[in-house]
């Protein structure tokens, strides 16, 4: 099966082509089935591949053809199947399948149904390429491909300005990240003479520290762009303008984790480049707490989830940065499930409320939407890291990793973030599902979603609840570590022997953090002690800062963009007036010269004759000068 691994992306590609060519005219709603069928088949194959890898096929390269070969630069279109990529394949296809199914229901009444599934399939294809690639350049194809699909799907409702703006913003900020990726990639080739992972990692030793740091920082810029880390995070919340399945699949479960995957993939490089790893950890931690604080005060249910995603991605980078890539990937997987579930749940709510996203108008919905409520409760618990839900295990892995790496400050940040996380998820769920309905009109019309939408929710809920158990016990010798470990750790790295009691202690702290957050949330929103409104008033400036997302959008969208536009405008003026003006000026000069010279043509014969005589004098002097040697010959 591994040899046929290319079938996995080929099916979505086929679905994309079929839907793209015939969807709008002929297939219409069949497109959903085609796309879903394709990805489901891919999921089955991914499972088979995963099992084979599990069965001992640890590292296989499947080459299709040579893509680019110029001089000593060669890049193939080939897949690397190892535990890491097989896990990713599995996550992408399985979560993808569920979301595809959900979307069949969610998008049923949209007139862009065929288009939606065309692009969704393309996304699946690109994402699969991204995770399968055996070299950085091919990964970049997927990398940009998912970026493109993200652009297309955020701007799916293209007749409105906001989605368009969000789509452009997403693509542009990603491009800034891609710039870093490009630099990292090219530098990698310069240093190692190859872009294939295995060849590069085998030669890590030949690179200097400076080289490695440059490469890793550059790659991390790329990862930060894709995974919405500071300072390139601001596109992701805006990306919620797209249809909810898009948010779930692309902006929560898969695409945004590509950055994490990239760094995890490059662990050998990052580990060898110490400072870069530090940067990753710090940026991850700051992003985690930064986004969590913003999530505290949002009222748009999808925005809460979006900032939560940014925050959770921060966790993953924190994990990578502290040298716990397994934990990062593990969290990536669990997060894919519970965050997809949260988004889909939100989508279900929004769908049920007729496209209302403001939590202030919800409330008490648990009676109207029980399935949604219960599944989201599971996901919320996972996000708040309550044992035994999946989120607990993975987040605990991260936090203990941070603690054990000796960077207790980062660990502390993680714990604080965990409290905040638990708080905002409590707040969101309470505002949505509990209490009294605040908008009776909306409440009247609210209804549970059809089965095609709730079934995926249930499936995801099961995943969110149980996936954590995969970690095994004790965690650091459990299944995940033994399976993923070899793929992402550098050979010969010192094994950490950890006391079990330490681990349990750390777990207790993180559970406590989660519970503290929930308690505060319940206290504020159920008991109104303290009353949220009072807190808001008391926090004053801080609250405004958070509501305005630290004013970063203002800075980006207005100050920087305006400044650049103004500068480019000046350049254009320079082009038209100075450069072109110079060219036209030369022409005008000739014309002015001509105008002057023609005035010598007076029309009077005597003047002409005089000119001849003057010319004679000049010629005479010139010849005389030559004869006398005044002029050089």
């Amino acid at each position: 099966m591994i040899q046929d691994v290319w079938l996995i992306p080929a099916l979505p590609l086929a679905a994309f082509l079929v839907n793209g060519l015939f969807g709008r005219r002929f297939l219409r709603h069949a497109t959903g089935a085609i796309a879903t069928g394709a990805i489901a088949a891919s999921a089955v194959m991914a499972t088979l591949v995963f099992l084979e890898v599990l069965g001992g096929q640890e590292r296989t390269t499947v080459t299709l053809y040579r893509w680019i070969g110029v001089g000593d630069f060669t890049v193939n279109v080939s897949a690397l199947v190892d535990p890491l990529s097989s896990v990713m394949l599995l996550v992408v296809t399985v979560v993808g399948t569920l979301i595809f199914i959900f979307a069949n229901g969610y998008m049923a009444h949209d007139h862009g149904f065929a288009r939606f599934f065309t692009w969704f399939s393309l996304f699946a294809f690109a994402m699969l390429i991204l995770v399968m690639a055996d070299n950085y350049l091919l990964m970049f194809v997927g990398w940009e491909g998912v970026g493109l699909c993200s652009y297309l799907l955020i701007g799916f409702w293209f007749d409105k300005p906001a989605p368009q703006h969000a789509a452009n913003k997403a693509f542009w900020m990603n491009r800034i990240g891609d710039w870093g990726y490009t630099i990292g990639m090219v530098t990698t080739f310069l240093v190692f003479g190859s872009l294939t992972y295995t060849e590069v990692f085998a030669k890590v030793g030949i690179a200097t520290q400076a080289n490695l740091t440059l490469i890793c920082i550059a790659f991390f810029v790329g990862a930060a762009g894709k995974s919405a880390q500071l300072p390139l995070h601001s596109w992701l919340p805006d990306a919620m303008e797209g249809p909810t399945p898009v948010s779930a699949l692309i902006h929560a479960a898969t695409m945004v984790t590509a950055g994490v995957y990239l760094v995890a993939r490059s662990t050998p490089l990052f580990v060898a480049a110490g400072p870069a790893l530090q940067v990753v950890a710090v940026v991850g931690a700051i992003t985690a707490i930064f986004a969590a604080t913003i999530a505290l005060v949002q009222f748009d249910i999808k925005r809460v989830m979006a900032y939560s995603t940014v925050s959770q991605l921060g966790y993953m980078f924190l994990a990578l940065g502290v040298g716990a890539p397994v934990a990062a990937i593990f969290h990536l997987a669990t997060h894919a499930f519970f965050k997809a579930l949260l988004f889909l749940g939100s989508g279900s709510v929004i769908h049920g409320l007729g496209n209302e996203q403001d939590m202030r108008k919800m409330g008490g919905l648990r009676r109207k939407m029980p399935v949604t409520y219960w599944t989201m409760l599971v996901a919320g618990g996972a996000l708040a890291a309550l044992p035994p839900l999946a989120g607990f295990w993975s987040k605990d892995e991260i936090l203990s990793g941070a603690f054990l790496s000796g960077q207790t400050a980062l660990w502390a940040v993680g714990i604080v973030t965990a409290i905040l996380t638990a708080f905002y998820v409590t707040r969101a769920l309470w505002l949505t599902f509990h209490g009294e309905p605040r908008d009776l009109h909306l409440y009247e019309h609210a209804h549970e979603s059809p089965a095609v939408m709730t079934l995926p929710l249930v499936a995801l809920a099961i995943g969110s609840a149980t996936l954590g158990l995969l970690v095994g016990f004790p965690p650091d010798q459990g299944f995940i570590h033994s399976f993923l470990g070899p793929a992402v750790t550098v050979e010969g790295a010192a094994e950490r022997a950890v006391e079990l009691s330490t681990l349990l202690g750390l777990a207790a702290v993180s559970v406590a953090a989660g519970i503290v957050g929930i308690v505060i949330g319940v206290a504020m929103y159920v008991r109104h002690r303290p009353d949220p409104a009072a807190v808001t008033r008391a926090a004053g400036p801080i609250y405004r800062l958070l509501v305005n997302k630290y004013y970063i959008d203002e800075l980006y969208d207005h100050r920087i963009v305006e400044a650049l536009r103004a500068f480019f405008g000046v350049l254009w003026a320079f082009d038209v007036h100075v450069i072109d003006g110079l060219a036209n000026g030369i022409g005008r000069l000739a014309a002015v010269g001509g105008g002057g010279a023609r005035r010598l043509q007076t029309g009077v014969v005597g003047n002409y004759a005089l000119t001849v005589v003057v010319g004679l004098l000049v010629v005479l002097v010139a010849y005389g000068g030559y004869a006398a040697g005044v002029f050089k010959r």
Partner: protein
Amino acid sequence: MNIPVGAFIAVSSILFFIGVAGVLMRRNAVVILMCVELMLNAANLALVAFSRRAGSPDERGSVFVVFIFVIAAAEVAVGLAIVLSSYRNRPTVDVDEVQAMKG
């Protein structure tokens, strides 16, 4: 003869440049034509003087002069015809006034 050729040539050059000056100064086309004739005469004088140079007399200068006579006659004939035909259309021979075309 004790007068050197140079003296004749000097006279001819003075005559020539008086002619040139006349062309440049006078307005009347006929007078300008006369001045051109003076210039041609200066050439004649020079040619004859050169051709009668002591030691190396050479008839060619004189022959040249004969041809210049012919040419001068032809030139004057055509020139006066041109002046006349111009005068018929517009009764002036003042070259300062003949300047419809310029620039």
